[in-house]
């Protein structure tokens, strides 16, 4: 009797250990799988050549993904530039100024925002953001566009990023010790000066981590951006140009890839590059967050 319980316990331990190893190696398996599939294109073009080349002509065997990377980069960067100040100010207001009740009523809204699927944001973008840019914003700058622009993608993306970024900001502001604020206030600083000169300076690594994490989230977002960004293959020159982000390239071309040699391998290569970019961003933000935790300990 006693034995059976211990045997059961040990067997489950080994089983769970196996599941744990398998689970934690999924990231590695995904990376290796994508790398193996992109091997043919790397063999014939070299590893870095497709990243720096702007010529995407699959029929001629030219697979330069630079326009897509630049497209993704612009869309993500502008989205972050819009989201960042809005989220930071809101988080500061909710934590430092507003009564606790306001924060509690605000949480369900964030829940909703983070629960809405990407495709719904896309629908909203087509219905509201695209016409707004076409009819109001672009004419204001004397530009004529269809509305399906880098800017439309960025605006939709910036709304999608709000819940992620704001929750991290709230967490970070909460980890700043209360004594620091009190010390600054007692020296005669106003509340805003305390926040600006003490709290935010202390929280800087966390703020950077939130930025980087938002950037990685933005880079990988597929459907919502793809629906409003226009999908024209060229390096965009202004925010009112159409762009073609990297994830959209993979999503749009899957049906036709099998008839052209190396095409599927090129798409897998772009998936691999996307994976690498996001991985680097994630690890960077992890490093910054660890640094924040270390600073807080002293």
């Amino acid at each position, binding site marked *: 009797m006693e034995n059976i319980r211990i045997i059961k316990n040990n067997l489950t331990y080994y089983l769970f250990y196996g599941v744990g190893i398998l*689970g934690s190696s999924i990231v590695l398996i995904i990376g290796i799988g994508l790398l193996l599939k992109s091997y043919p294109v790397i063999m014939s073009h070299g590893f870095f050549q497709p990243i720096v080349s702007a010529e995407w002509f699959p029929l001629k065997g030219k697979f330069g993904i630079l326009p897509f990377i630049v497209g993704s980069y612009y869309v993500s960067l502008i989205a972050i530039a819009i989201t960042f100040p809005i989220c930071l100010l809101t988080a500061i207001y909710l934590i430092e100024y507003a009564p606790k009740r306001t924060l509690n009523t605000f949480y369900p809204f964030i829940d909703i*925002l983070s629960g809405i699927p990407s495709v719904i944001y896309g629908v909203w973008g087509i219905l509201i953001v695209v016409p707004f840019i076409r009819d109001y914003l672009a004419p204001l700058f004397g530009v004529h566009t269809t509305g399906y622009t880098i800017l439309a993608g960025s605006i939709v993306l910036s709304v999608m990023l709000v819940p992620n970024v704001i929750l991290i900001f709230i967490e970070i502001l909460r980890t700043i010790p209360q004594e620091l604020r009190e010390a600054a206030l007692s020296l005669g600083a106003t509340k805003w000066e305390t926040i600006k000169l003490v709290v935010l300076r202390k929280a800087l690594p966390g703020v950077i981590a939130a930025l980087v994490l938002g950037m990685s989230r933005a*880079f990988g977002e597929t459907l919502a951006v793809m629906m409003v960004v226009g999908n024209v293959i060229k390096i965009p020159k202004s925010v009112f140009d159409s762009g073609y982000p990297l994830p959209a390239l993979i999503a749009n071309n899957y049906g036709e890839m099998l008839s052209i040699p190396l095409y599927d391998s090129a798409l897998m290569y772009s998936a691999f590059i996307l994976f690498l970019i996001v991985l680097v961003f994630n690890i960077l933000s992890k490093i910054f967050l660890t640094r924040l935790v270390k600073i807080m300990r002293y």
Partner: protein
Amino acid sequence: MNRRETEEKIFVFLMKVTTLMIVFIILLIIGTIIVKGYRAISFSMLFETPRGGYFLGKGGGILNAIAGSFYLAGGATAIAIIAGIPIVMLMNVFLKKTSKFSSFIRLCFDVLWGVPSIVYGAFGFILMVLLGLSASLLAGIIIISILILPIVVRSIDEISQTVPDGLIHASLSLGATKLETGMKVITRQILPGILTAILIAFGRAIGDAAAVLFTAGYSDSVPKSLFDTVATLPLAIFFQLSSPMPEVEDRAFAAALVLTFIVLCVSVCSRLLTNKYNKYKI
């Protein structure tokens, strides 16, 4: 002195503006979807599969996509829970909470959480070819379950870490094995956390489109077996929205309303559940 106070006033004003702006945008999104979808939705839309000439604007509904989404998200959530709970148990009961392997698993799942769903889609395609599957419900379930596994593991893990060590030690000192401690003591403590994780994972699974783009296919009927292709709500919205016919476009809005409604229900339920059970936690 005056300048400092003016600066503060300006910034507090800006903060109030941005907070209201976020709330306004959320209401705008929900409002847009409701107004557009309300006009298009009808009884036959919800309970009929597409008939002939559906994509030319003739009769039928989106039952295929609704049912498909539920099958896909339900199956994937079940698999993710079955695979996820052992991992959480391993990290929190069998190993020490702070052991190197536990932290390593946490790091891996954090990174996995960040991988974009289109990359899962591409990887799913490789996996499908490797296993000799064609685009089907089964392939979709497998890839979605991998997609939501990090959510399940990390959110249950967060709750498990709050279980007091004393509880575990008390159980062990009474002669229970680690397995029994995990299954009979810890599980009871973290049950609300597990339910919330299920809901969050389900919500993410039902809304994801990019990962099933290549793996689930698309079909006009409700799938009868695991090897049938299956339609999902997000893809139904995406495909119908690109149609030039206004009747078909309207169906996309109806489908968007249905999807938003499901996701909002899930989100409200998980919030209520969290609030309700947090009262009784030790």
